[in-house]
């Protein structure tokens, strides 16, 4: 693959962003294993977790090739520090109650469906291929969380209130998914990735429709958290990484 240095660096950073989103959220979701409110949900959330880890692996593998420094996807997952992770803050927040998990999954899956629909037309074949695959899986994820949004919103007063609380708490973290900066601009100018401004508008439309159907009020948009995309994270990421990385770091050549 021949890319000039500037584009290659931007692409590497972008791939880390989309891979780390999935790696961290996948890890968060795995915390529901054995703790789901009902058996079907235990299985659903961990299946989604597995899909996200698989997608993260594919994107990280591609990132490692793009970087060209003979690191592997495992090196990138297990031997980077907090500051090197480029996931948005939304995905690293603790799992909260079931309503919190569902609201976050809905926000994230809706974003991923819109992003992957565009990425599957990327001028880079490898990126397009991985994203076309991710799109198929994420469509099922979106259907899952969308249906739960409707059920929780239209269920009891308590379920609606818990969902509203979760939405209120998460809302200020959603803006970072659509962050536009030089990386996004450089890559979208080359048709490698889509314009995030366009995706953001579609996302807002779809989310507003779901909120109407779920009797959820759209929070006032004001301050939006950011920093994750440049490695400035909440206190929660370090805790996830220590749990995720300890085995490999203690026994670097462990295999089973």
């Amino acid at each position, binding site marked *: 693959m021949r890319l000039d240095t500037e584009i290659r660096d931007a692409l590497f950073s972008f791939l880390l962003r989309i891979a780390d989103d999935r790696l961290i959220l996948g890890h968060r979701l795995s915390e529901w294993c054995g703790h789901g409110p009902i058996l079907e949900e235990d299985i659903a959330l961990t299946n989604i977790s597995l899909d*996200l880890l*698989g997608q993260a692996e594919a994107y990280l593998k591609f990132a490692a090739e793009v970087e060209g420094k003979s690191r592997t996807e495992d090196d990138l997952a297990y031997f980077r520090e907090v500051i090197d992770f480029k996931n948005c803050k939304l995905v690293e927040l603790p799992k909260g109650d079931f309503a919190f998990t569902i609201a976050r999954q809905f926000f994230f899956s809706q974003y991923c469906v819109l992003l992957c629909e565009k990425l599957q037309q990327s001028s880079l074949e490898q990126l397009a291929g991985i994203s076309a*695959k991710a799109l*198929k899986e994420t469509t099922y994820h979106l259907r899952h969380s969308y249906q739960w949004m409707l059920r929780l919103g239209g269920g009891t007063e308590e379920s609606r209130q818990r969902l509203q609380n979760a939405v209120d708490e998460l809302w200020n973290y959603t803006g970072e998914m659509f962050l536009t900066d030089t990386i996004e601009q450089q890559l979208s100018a080359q048709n490698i990735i889509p314009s995030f401004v366009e995706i953001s508008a579609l996302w807002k439309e779809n989310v507003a429709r779901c909120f109407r159907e779920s009797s959820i009020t759209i929070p006032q948009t004001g301050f939006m958290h950011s920093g994750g995309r440049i490695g400035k994270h909440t206190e929660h990421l370090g805790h996830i990484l220590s749990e995720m990385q300890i085995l490999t770091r203690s026994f670097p050549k462990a295999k089973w």
Partner: protein
Amino acid sequence: MTEQTILGYLSEILDPEIPVLNIVEMGIVRSVFFENEKVVVTITPTYSGCPAMRMIEDNIVEKLKENGCGEVELKTVYTPTWTTDWLNEITKKKLQQYGISPPHTTSDNHFVEITLPKKISCPYCQSHQTSLKSDFSSTACKAMYYCNACLQPFEYFKEI
């Protein structure tokens, strides 16, 4: 040894999670070719996180070595994207006989609408009086259903 012989060996490898289907009819094996003495097999994952893929890769190498292939190289490809539409009628029949309802044809609808899937028939009694319990089940590729006619839970191989 020809490419066809190699494909013959590969079609003896069964999917570890659905041991009535082989990896060639599932469409996991995309192509086989020779590079000098080396055999190159390209494969595509069914689901990104499918844990069976690692085992399938090991099985391919082992099977080909057993049958006298020297060097074997595996390449993972993502294009074209794996789809259940590649399963032919014979393969679907095998699934049904194994107790898994075979996949419907995919549509362009990305389920963004809250449409419920088409009526799925029970693999045991063929009734369409079935209900979806969850889009996720014992493996990534299946959904959980319940037959209201014969009162059996069963799995549906999701179209993707």
